[in-house]
């Protein structure tokens, strides 16, 4: 945002970063499984703001249709739900991470094509460790970067140590968000 934009208070929502970065997850998932013993939970979700405009629900329906259509070949299942904060989740279930990534990308592409790309917050990929604990990798569309999110026991606690370790372990295989103050938690992830 430029100096003049600050002066005149001009505001535009940031559009999603080029989406090819989300595909880094399909190769990183192999490393996660082989070296870190994090297996996919078979689920991924994309979260966006539903708008109350006439064409928005239609675009969302079309998007779900597209993913369902391709899902018939790959076996991906789709469901959607609204969370307590008024955001819409589209949850994909598929044991194959690569299919999940393709499905998530199809969703974001459909929203962008409909002109609502700036309403997408994140995509979330769920993994579970050897003890059955949940580990999430969150892809922030505005920043075009991943960050780990590990909820801990207790209400709204997160395991920062584990998250930092994950960042070090994954190395350069994923584009990881460099600014820690942008590792926003997402509570109540429905996957």
């Amino acid at each position, binding site marked *: 945002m430029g100096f003049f934009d600050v*002066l005149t*208070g001009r*505001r*535009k929502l940031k559009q999603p970063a080029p989406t090819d970065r989300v595909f880094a997850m399909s190769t990183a998932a192999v490393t996660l499984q082989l070296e870190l013993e994090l297996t996919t939970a078979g689920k991924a979700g994309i979260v966006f*703001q539903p708008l109350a405009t006439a064409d928005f629900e239609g675009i969302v329906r079309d998007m779900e249709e597209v993913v369902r259509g391709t899902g018939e070949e790959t076996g991906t299942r789709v469901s959607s739900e609204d969370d307590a*904060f008024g955001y819409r989740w589209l949850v994909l279930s598929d044991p194959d991470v690569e299919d999940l990534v393709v499905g998530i990308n199809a969703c974001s592409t459909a929203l962008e094509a409909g002109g609502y790309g700036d309403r997408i917050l*994140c995509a979330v990929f769920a993994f579970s460790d050897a003890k059955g604990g949940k580990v999430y990798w969150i892809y*922030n569309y505005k920043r075009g970067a991943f960050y780990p999110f590990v909820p801990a026991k207790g209400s709204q606690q997160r395991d920062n140590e584990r998250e930092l370790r994950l960042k070090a372990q994954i190395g350069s295989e994923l584009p990881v968000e460099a600014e820690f103050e942008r590792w926003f938690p997402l509570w109540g992830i429905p996957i």
Partner: protein
Amino acid sequence: MARPTSFGRDTGLQVRMTLTMFLLGLLYVGFVVTMIAVGVNALLIVLIAGGLAAFQLFGSDNLALRAMGARTVEPHEAPEFHAMIERLCIQADLPKPKVAIANTRMPNAFAIGRSPKNATVCATTGIIDLLSPAELEGVMAHELTHVQNRDVLVMTLASFFATIAAYIMQFGLFFGGGGSGDDDDGPSVLVLFAVSFVVYVVSFVLMQALSRYREFSADRGAALMTGRPSALASALVKISGGMQRIPAKDLRAQGELAAFYIFPPGAGKKLGSFFSTHPPMEKRIAALERLEGQLQGR
């Protein structure tokens, strides 16, 4: 093939805001030239005012919070409020500001801090109780837009020379007397005094206008961020009702903070709109209705 969108565009507002700032700049250049021409310790005055402005920008955040009776809260103390702000920050691509809550029944919210990395957003317990989640989200998006637009910094800089003019009016004779010691010092001090007076009055009106324009653009930014202009509009209606019902004695004392409130204390009174920091409620709601129209009718 994203569709062309007019949502959130308001060229007229940007033109008016630029014009106001241009006039302020022009006024201040004239003021500085006069100070140099008169040559009475202008440097000293600028240094003092600069120091005060720097203190205001760099040191006064905690003071302002304490004056409001607000304290920063950790995520586990107000989990839903934090989560709401976190999601707005993702959407607006902002680093997360500090989050504070003031324990007062008066419904209000404000943002302070010179830059997005040093910002604090605050809501009162009154506003959290009064508004529905979507309305509160609109209000906090308004405050986050203030943060993103760096309104504290812009207004502090815009008021810099006005502050100097005010000092000169108060201490003009004192500073003038310490000048070169020439005998013909007298008339130049009078000129400086008169110019300061004019600068003070004109810049006051211009700055109030600027503040109103920045309120409009914060409303617009909030509507863009949440995609729900009408939620903010209904929040404004609820808050203005609440503001008139509940007396505002504590907060009214904090005059210089008023510009950053979502809704200024005491705004229920019939003030000349020319002299107020916030636009009238009806105009803000009308602007939000236009935004909702742009959103729906694209």
